[in-house]
């Protein structure tokens, strides 16, 4: 994996006005980079702002503050149509619910080719058809499926159509917002294997948003943990699971039930109490171990460093 930055997120904020005097700070000052060719996992409980982050990065929402720099250019700010088109082609999204995200009145062929039509990627009808057939085969469906409607497919197949649609404009970066949560276990594995295969073949970069931590660990290179609109910990996937530092991450990991009865009998759950933090100053994002960042105050930083700072496996 290269260390070249594809996406840089700088102090990203997304606040929603919910009443005259109440503001929901869904995302509040996020900073992280996504490297070319990696899978960045974003986890957290519902309402922590992980989906909002994904949607703000792709500009489904206009950010309240901060920058999203993609390939050296800011995604937000004033843009004319042609500039926006350029981003839209490079960045695509796979949505959570394969039932709601496909237009029931459109044929699969038109759903997949819609992006190509907008960007003028197909020279003629024949080329368009061929490209759609090729995409269907890439995602494990066959070309006879092109003339059907979404309701004729199962959940797993629909999610494959969603993947094919995202791939149609040859993007380099895909945001997958809980792409497997709505699927059955056996089908989840099919879709995850497909995403991994595509990444290897096409050198894609993923932002993988999910709450199923074992799947995130499996697919991601690095993982960020979000809590109430802030990122509390960011680390390589293995390091995060083996050496969680922030107490919230520890509690989150201790809550996952694993398919192993012996482990389950001995698992002890750890509850997170946000009041136990040092409140003498605003916490900042600091590097406790190489590549392993934690949101903490100076005092906590010293403490974490003493406890977890040395790399011993």
């Amino acid at each position, binding site marked *: 994996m290269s260390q070249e930055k594809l996406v840089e997120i700088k102090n990203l904020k997304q606040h929603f006005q919910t009443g005259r005097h109440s503001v929901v700070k869904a995302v509040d000052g996020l900073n992280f980079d996504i490297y070319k060719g990696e899978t960045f996992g974003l986890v957290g409980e519902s309402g922590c702002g992980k989906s909002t982050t994904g949607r703000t990065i792709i500009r489904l929402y206009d950010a309240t503050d901060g920058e999203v720099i993609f390939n050296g250019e800011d995604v937000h700010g004033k843009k004319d149509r042609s500039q926006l088109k350029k981003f839209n082609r490079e960045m695509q999204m796979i949505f959570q619910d394969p039932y709601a995200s496909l237009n029931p009145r459109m044929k699969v062929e038109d759903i997949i080719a819609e992006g190509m039509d907008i960007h003028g990627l197909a020279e003629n009808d024949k080329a368009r058809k061929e490209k759609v057939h090729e995409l269907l085969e890439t995602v494990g469906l066959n070309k006879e499926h092109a003339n059907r409607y979404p309701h004729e497919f199962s959940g797993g197949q629909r999610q494959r159509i969603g993947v094919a649609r995202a791939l149609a404009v040859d993007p380099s970066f895909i945001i997958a917002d809980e792409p497997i949560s709505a699927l059955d*276990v056996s*089908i989840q594995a099919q879709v*995850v294997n497909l995403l991994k295969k595509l990444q290897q073949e096409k050198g894609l970069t993923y932002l993988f948003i999910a709450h199923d*931590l074992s799947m995130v660990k499996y697919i991601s290179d690095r993982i960020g943990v979000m809590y109430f609109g802030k990122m509390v910990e960011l680390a390589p996937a293995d390091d995060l699971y083996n050496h969680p530092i922030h107490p919230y991450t520890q509690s989150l990991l201790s809550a996952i*039930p694993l*398919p192993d*009865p012996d482990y*389950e009998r001995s698992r002890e759950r750890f509850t997170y109490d946000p009041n136990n933090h040092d409140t003498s100053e605003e916490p900042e994002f600091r590097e406790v171990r190489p590549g392993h960042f934690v949101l903490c105050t100076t005092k906590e930083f010293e403490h974490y460093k003493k406890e977890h700072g040395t790399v011993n496996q």
Partner: protein
Amino acid sequence: MEKLLEVKDLHVSFDTYGGEVKAVRGVNFDLKRGETLAIVGESGSGKSVTTKALMQLIPMPPGRIKEGEILFEGRDIAKMNEKQMQKIRGKEMSMIFQDPMTSLNPTMKVGNQIMEGLIKHQKMNKAQARKRVVELLDLVGIPDPEGRMKQYPHQFSGGMRQRVVVAIALACNPKLLIADEPTTALDVTIQAQILELMKDIQKKTDSATIFITHDLGVVANVADRVAVMYAGKIVEVGTVDDIFYNPKHPYTWGLLGSMPSLDSEDEELYAIPGSPPDLLDPPKGDAFAARNEYAMKIDLEEEPPMFKVSDTHYAATWLLHENAPNIEPPETVKKRMKGMANSSSSSSEGERV
């Protein structure tokens, strides 16, 4: 332990325009007092229909219990009428539904919803019922029960709402609790709390639980015994250790292999190819044969009977037949079986029952 519930050869079908959908096709299991049975399987495998049949919550028509007996403390529920059923439902057996957002009445105060069953079944007056509601809310871990019982469901968070649903289900001290994916809609930390709560209450009340889920982690956490369902049938049943450490049915292998373990390396997940069969017209022979890479000729012709692996462990696959080749489960599944290497039941043959 004595048997609380016995289900014998249960068949449930739905009559649709397309024909008869055979949702449950001959299910047998039993449940002892204080025991937790987990039923796992994909959507459409018949796990929810089975448990709804136990409560007689299947809309009839189009549904009907075609055949079979459901013996609850010796009485056959399948033959009861609605009036008899109303005396049992909510009192002796009750259900926790998947979605706490839709299973509560949004126009009724939470306290009144819990009181309904108490007044109806326990013949309590309002004051007594109110006292019991406070106890129940306390039991399920809702702080400030007196204040909270006067609130409406929308004033509760998802986890708190599911606690209310649990309180309603427990109100009349049921002997059997059916939980249909009670934590699927919740976050992991909230899920952990609800599971702990349910286990805790079960210990206190000695009720039996049927737990439907497709999350094998949850199964490992709560279950004493596990039944794996596929296409309307139980294909493997055993203690939780039998199923996780010595699985015999290729479908169980597939389910276990498709979940990454936290220490799994970068190998590909074992995915079950294809999708479940159409129950309008169930295939001849073993319903799983089309997705089974170990399928043999006989799988396409004849349905496998249940083979006995041990006293607690049964599986319906021809692989356990004495003439079947000795087939090893896939690597990813074998890794999970590490703990059971020296168990006596590692032979690949079973006794036909």
